[in-house]
């Protein structure tokens, strides 16, 4: 998610949009210019953070490799070579092969599509639920807010991992169900963050102006409030993805993930752990790749928080 995607009056007032602008931003002209540079400032701060840049670069590289790498490989993720069996890393198979003679590198890349894909989709589910829920609670406030946040409090206390396990066991290892279930678990913190943001935005003048202009509540929430709460939302999204990927791998490790011949990193780690005594590379490479991905996401998320969230940027 690039900052420039946020086409709101506050964040992207190019010359054209400023000209056609009786938008209820409610802010003084010079504030608009300052707001304009908020994203550029954030971008500059992010670019200075070496770890975050490294994380972002590594992720980009990894995603491209997972998407396109398998196309250029002589092997496919399911092609077996039973004569070869498990072989250590070599010139022909850079990361070795598994017990069925399948190329580990290709399997890792294809598995990465699933792991990253589940991470993204589940995060999107969590993002959607959390943002809408938090925005509604914060916007309407009062009794509704108290009730909705009470529900969140209570849900925080529930043993959700247990429910996800039960769901996966009972309804089969369905990949769509997998990310819906994970997403449904991970939205709570997002709801709290968005609600707090909306609460503080509610008192801003430009929102009052929007009310005075008679805009619909829906329009105010989705066009004027949420875009202004985008910073913390982006930050928390980046930090949700690794959490989601961990949960997916956790489920896969328990044998509840995707089904063979497809595989995710969690499945590969599980298989590797079973055979590590003889074939260390089957555990080492999947584990290392997974950890590097989590590292990158966390570094990027921390960097984004420092760059975007001025309140917690102190630390």
């Amino acid at each position: 998610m690039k900052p420039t995607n946020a086409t709101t009056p506050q964040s992207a007032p190019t010359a054209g949009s400023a000209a056609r602008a009786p938008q209820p931003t409610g802010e003084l002209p010079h504030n608009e210019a300052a707001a304009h540079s908020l994203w550029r400032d954030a971008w500059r701060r992010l670019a200075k953070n070496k770890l975050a840049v490294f994380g972002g670069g590594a992720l980009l590289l990894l995603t491209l490799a997972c998407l396109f790498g398998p196309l250029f490989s002589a092997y496919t993720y399911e092609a077996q070579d039973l004569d070869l069996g498990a072989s250590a890393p070599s010139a022909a198979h850079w990361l070795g092969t598994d017990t069925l003679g399948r190329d580990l590198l290709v399997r890792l890349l294809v598995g990465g599509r699933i792991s990253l894909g589940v991470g993204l989709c589940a995060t999107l589910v969590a993002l959607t639920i959390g943002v809408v829920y938090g925005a509604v609670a914060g916007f309407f406030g009062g009794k509704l807010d108290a009730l909705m946040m009470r529900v969140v409090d209570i849900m925080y206390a529930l043993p959700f991992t247990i429910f996800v396990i039960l769901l996966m066991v009972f309804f089969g290892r369905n990949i769509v169900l997998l990310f819906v279930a994970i997403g449904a678990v991970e939205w709570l913190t997002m709801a709290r963050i968005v609600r707090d943001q909306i609460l503080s935005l509610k008192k801003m003048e430009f929102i009052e102006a929007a009310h005075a202009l008679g805009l619909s509540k829906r329009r105010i929430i989705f066009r004027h409030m949420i875009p202004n709460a985008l910073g913390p939302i982006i930050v928390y999204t980046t930090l949700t993805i690794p959490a989601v990927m961990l949960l997916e791998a956790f489920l896969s490790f328990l044998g509840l993930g995707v089904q063979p011949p497809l595989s995710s990193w969690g499945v590969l780690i599980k298989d590797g752990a079973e055979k590590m005594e003889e074939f260390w590379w089957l555990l080492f490479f999947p584990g290392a790749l997974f950890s590097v991905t989590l590292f990158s996401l966390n570094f990027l998320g921390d960097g984004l928080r420092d760059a975007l969230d001025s309140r917690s940027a102190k630390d």
Partner: protein
Amino acid sequence: MTRFILSRALQIVVVLWVIITATFFMIRFVPGGPFTAEKAVTPEVLRNLEAHYGLDQPLWRQYLDYMGKLVLHGDLGPSFKYASRSVNEIIADKLPVSLELGGLSLGIALALGLPLGVVAAVRRNRFADYLCSSVAMIGICVPTFVLGPLFVLFFAIKLGWVNASGWYGPTDRVLPALTLGLVYAAYIARLTRGGMLEVLGQDYIRTAQAKGASAARILRVHALRGGLLPVVSFLGPAIAGILTGSFVIETIFQIPGLGREFVQSAFNRDYTLVLGTVILYATLIVTLNLAVDLAQVWLNPRRKFE
């Protein structure tokens, strides 16, 4: 205070009731039953089995029976898979193992995480800080199911210091507890660092410094109490995480605990055992969360009981 505890206790009862009811009906609407996997069960045998366990009754009847026994006698019913064993017996058998593993892990997590976090905060942006923070980051990014097998490979198989699996002697506790504890030590270290940094920047710390209190005294008397707040609020989720995290650890190290039993029982469609374990976990987690809330108020008098 008493009112707060009472209202929270009432809330816990409601939450538990919802969890039990939801789980009870969810597992019944699932395809397959506890006896479908067994080979060549004739229809008559199946009918007898179902009659024996009361599965032939209407669902609402079963639900009322179950709730009645649970509330009046704390009876979780007979297991469907382990003939002639009750769920209570199985839990009494397996729970101590999981609790021991969890307790040890939590101990390790606190014993490592707190000092690391405090050192990182006090020596902010110096070498010690970078070292502690990097170690913590590694702990967060290398999940238990990677760390555990790697530990086994290195310490058990290559070096032969401990057994690769099992749960007999004291040395068998080392690797599982360490694996589970290290991850949470990492989180605790990060939270401690953040909390301490925030407190150390407060005016009252500067006042204490100005009055000539020693660095150690400031840390011990003034900073720790406030600095540990984020850690305390994390302990609720952490304990829940350690409890469920033991599913993986118990699988890796083949420990006969409740976590492994729970996953197995779900695969086996052992309704009563699934339900019993869920009730137990939910009760533990919800109660511990209440304890964490109380501890938070104790540490931070400004936060009033809602």
